[in-house]
Structure formats: C-alpha cells, structure tokens
C-alpha cells in the first residue's frame, strides 16, 4: 500500500478503476497523493463497514439457532432424562407418563411415508430428467410438482381426511396419515432427486448411449448410482421435515394412540397391534399440539420434553444425511 501512495498517480495502472472513475478530474500530481490516500481510506473503511454488518447478520442468525436449541434442550432436559419418558406410554391428559407410543408412531409414519413416496418420487424425477422431452408435458409436470409443494400442509391434511379417512373409510389411521404425508413429501423429494440427476454430467449419458445401452439401462446402472449420495441426502433431509409435521396429521392419523399397543403382535389387523396400519396414531409433533392445550404444569413439562426429543431426532437426521451422503460419494468416486 505504501508503494501506491508514493507513485505519481496520473494514469497509474495500480489504481482501482472504480475509484478513479468516481473522481476523473484528478490530474494534479502534487494534490494527487493526498487525494489518493483519502480514496484509499474510504475504500478500506467501506470494506470494514460491510464486513462488520455482514458478520453481525450471520452472528444474529447463529445466535437465534443456538439460543433456540439451547433453550428447548434446557427446558426439556429435566423431562427427557426422567426414567420412563422414552419407554412409558402417556397417561390421561398427558399429565404424567412418557411418549413411547408417540415416538414409535412418528417413526412408523415416517417409515410408511418413505416406503410410498420414495419410489413414486424417484419415478417422477427420472421421467422429468431422463425421459420427458422439453415441451408442454414437462412444463405441466413441473408446474404440478411446484403447486403441490406450495400447498399449505393443513390443506393437504383436510384433503387427506376427506378422501382417505372419510371417502375410503380408513378413519383416523396410520395409513391415512402416511398417505397425507406422502403428498406433502413427494414434491420435496421429486425436486431433490431431479436436482441430483441433473447434476450427473451429460457425458455419462452420452457414454452409455454410445455403447448401445438403452435409456433405462443408463438410468438404472449409471445415472441413479452416480446421483445416489445426493438422493440419499435429499431423502433423509425430507425425512426430517416429515418427522416434525403436525398439521397434515391432525385430521388423518388422529390425535391419540390406542390405550395399549402390543409390539409383539404381528396380526396386522388386530386393533392393539402396533404394526396395524389401520389403527389411529399420534406423532410427537401432534402430541405437542394436543398436550399444550392442557395447561397444567406437568403437561408443560411433557411438552418441553417432547419438543426437545423431536428436535434431537431432526438434528440427528440432518447429521445422518450429511454423513451418509459423504460416505456414499466417497465409495462411488473412490477418493
């Protein structure tokens, strides 16, 4: 920088063009040194100011996240470590007991949702990226996916209630909830998988076609495996969102689990079998919503404990998504 101030400035190549163009009248070489020093200061100050403001913004975001996570964990920690919170079923009005059934139902709902939505989304995304020619069909399909993704989840829940619970006669059931969550999950997954497939270089497709392989062989053996790490990351992240969803489930899977569930009964039609998809169920998020209305201090404790548990699960999903994605891509590229 010292060098800059010593050199005569007229036409000096080391002047920042944006600064000189701001003051094109500078010609006197003697007055110039001072003027350039002033401009340099201004540039440096501007830079410092911007860095400061941007750092502050990002700091605020971090603070919000850390504060929220810490607050919920601290409030929920007491309940979370109570013996039986994770293993006992909830009692009437949620004034005591645990969330064992809600935890199970959340995972069971998630499992069923993924079983239904992953194949459908994979098919949809493959169609959009590998098969659909650029034209009206593709445009309509991608508009449909976007529309589905912008539907409020409570509306999806209402629709699920009217069609599956009432129309199909499934009542409040795990399967109604899973299908509603599927509708909520499909657009997220289609886009994630679509993005993953679009990121596979065109050269890979060319290589397959040039060896006389069909589009399907290319998709199954090369493109999907190449995109696998991004697909898995997308699926696990979407799982985090599904896991915490409440609104779409209020009217579909219901707001209560059976009083007693038998995890060892694999009679899928028995009303007390945990695995029966036609029994009502309650996810952790719905449980929070329901218990929060109770107002008693014990219920508040359960709400915090459940919230902390839900949050920990979602955070674990996010970590798993990253680790799984990284491990898979390392396996594929071998580096």
């Amino acid at each position, binding site marked *: 920088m010292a060098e800059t101030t010593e050199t005569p400035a007229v036409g000096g190549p080391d002047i920042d063009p944006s600064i000189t163009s701001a003051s094109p009248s500078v010609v006197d070489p003697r007055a110039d040194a001072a003027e350039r020093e002033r401009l340099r200061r201004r540039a440096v100050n501007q830079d410092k100011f911007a860095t400061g403001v941007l750092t502050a913004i990002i700091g605020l975001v971090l603070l919000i996240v850390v504060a929220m996570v810490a607050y919920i964990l601290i409030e929920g920690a007491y309940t979370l470590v109570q013996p039986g919170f994770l293993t006992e079923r909830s009692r009437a009005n949620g004034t005591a007991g645990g969330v064992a059934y809600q935890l199970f139902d959340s995972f069971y709902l998630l499992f069923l949702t993924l079983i239904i939505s992953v194949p459908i989304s994979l098919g949809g995304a493959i169609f959009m990226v590998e098969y659909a*020619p*650029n034209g009206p069909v593709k445009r309509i399909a991608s508009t449909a996916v976007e529309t589905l993704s912008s539907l409020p989840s409570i509306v999806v829940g209402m629709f699920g209630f009217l069609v599956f619970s009432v129309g199909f006669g499934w009542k409040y059931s795990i399967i109604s909830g899973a299908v509603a969550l599927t509708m909520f999950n499909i657009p997220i997954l289609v886009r994630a998988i679509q993005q993953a497939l679009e990121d596979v*270089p065109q*050269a*890979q497709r*060319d*290589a397959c*076609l*040039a*060896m*006389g*392989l*069909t589009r399907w*062989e290319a998709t199954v*053996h*090369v493109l999907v*495996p*190449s995109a696998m790490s991004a697909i898995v990351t997308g699926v696990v992240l979407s799982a985090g969102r599904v896991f915490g969803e409440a609104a779409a489930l209020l009217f579909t899977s219901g707001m209560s689990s059976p009083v007693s569930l038998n995890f060892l009964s694999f009679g899928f039609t028995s009303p007390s079998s945990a695995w029966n998809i036609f029994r009502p169920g309650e996810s952790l998020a719905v449980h929070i919503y329901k218990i929060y209305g109770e107002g008693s201090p014990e219920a508040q404790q359960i709400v915090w404990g459940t919230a902390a548990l839900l949050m920990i699960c979602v955070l674990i999903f996010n970590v798993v998504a990253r680790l799984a994605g990284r491990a898979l891509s390392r396996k*594929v*590229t*071998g*580096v």
Partner: protein
Amino acid sequence: MIETLEQSVASPALEELKAPVLYTKDVNVWYGDHHALQDTSLDFHKGEITALIGPSGCGKSTYLRCLNLMNREIQGCQITGEIFYREHDINTPEEDLYELRKSIGMVFQQPNPFPKTIYENIAFAPRCHGQRNKATLDELVEESLRGAALWDEVKDKLNKSAQALSGGQQQRLCIARALALKPDVILLDEPCSALDPISTLAIEELMHSIAAGRAIIIVTHNMEQATRVSNRTAFFYMGEMVETGETEQIFNAPKSQRLNDYLSGRFS
C-alpha cells in the same frame, strides 16, 4: 469399381481392405433451422485412420456424431442422406441403434469413465448386452485393457474406482471400454484435447495399434496430431466438407484455397 471387383476375385482379403466398412452419401444435418452440415460424402476403410479437421463450429463433430447416429439423441436434430455401414443404410427409423452402437464405438473429448470400479467400467456394457459368464468377462476385461495399453498400470487395482485414475489413464480406460464391445469402427471426438502432452502421446501411439482391422475416425483441432496419426484427412469449413485425401497431400499440397488459408493460419 471394376478394379475392385478384379481384386476381389484375386484376393478376398484385399477386397476386405478396399471396400469401405462405412461410407456416407450427401449427409445433411439440421439443428432446428440451422443447417449445420451440407452434402458430406466420405469413405472409411478398415485399417485406416481418418482425421477430420477444421475450425470450431465447422461441422466435423456434427458429422462424427452422425456415424453412430448419436445426433438422434439431440432434440430437433435432423439427419438426411445415406450412411452405409456393412452395406446397408443405417439412417432409417428402423435401424437398431443398440446393435449399431455396439459395433461403432465412440470416445469423447472429456474422459468420462463411469463412477464404478475399473473392472465394472469395462464389463458393464457387455453384461448389459447379454454376456454373463464371469470367466469370459474376466478375459474380456484383460484383453480390452491390454488393447488400450492400460493393463500393466491397473491390473492390481481392478476393483478400485475408475475416477481415481489420472486423466490420461481415464481416457485409455474409455478406449478399452469401447474395445470391449469388439467394434469395427471407433469414433474419437477430440480425445486428447483435455490431456497433457505425455498422455496425448500415449493415446496417439495407441491409435495405430487399435487401427488393425478397424476404421478409426478422429476429430482433432491439433493439426500436428492429424499429421502424426492419420492416413487420410478431411477438411471441414462452415458446415461443408471442403477437401479430402491422403494426409500427406492435404498438408503438403492442398488443392482448395480455403484449406490453404486454414493451414497457413489465416483463420482458425
């Protein structure tokens, strides 16, 4: 024609050499409304390496991609004219592209090995085409890698990912992958433009050995490369095949003014 006929009577092997394995008659290509290639007719013989040269956008790659009908994969691309391969016109809607592309291999500008192991990169396509015998596949992998002068470098790491190889090795793997389908024509689209000089040299040396019993057609920007590797050269300019002949004649005694200008660097 008469001469060819006489020779064929005298020696069937020679006839094999004389009759082109692949030739085109008045091939035209349109991308939508853009007329990218005009009336191109060329012959390709087994055992010969043909270089396609010309400035960027002259149509040489477009022409190359007609020969295995890869242009069909591009939406809005139309190919007219006749492309004869093994004495029948392949530019028809009925042509079995999968069969065709097994016997006309292609290598691209950027090395594009699959994100699979070295072994799988080679065995994958033959397996898709129905070869499921493990011993045969093992043999095929070794033979193809030897054919691409890569065997000694990778024989101990066949189960490692192909993407961990160097750029030059990856490109030779792509050639091995094409060889595994036993093609009698191999198309190379600027195969060395992404490689360093030493890897380029390795590929050029390889080209002579794989040309035995095959027609090799290579698009190149590098005129020294064309003189080093090819027997015949075709010069393309503005979507037109301007001049073709023996490589020596093309570079030392060009007939057309445009080729002369191109060679003397008056445009690029």
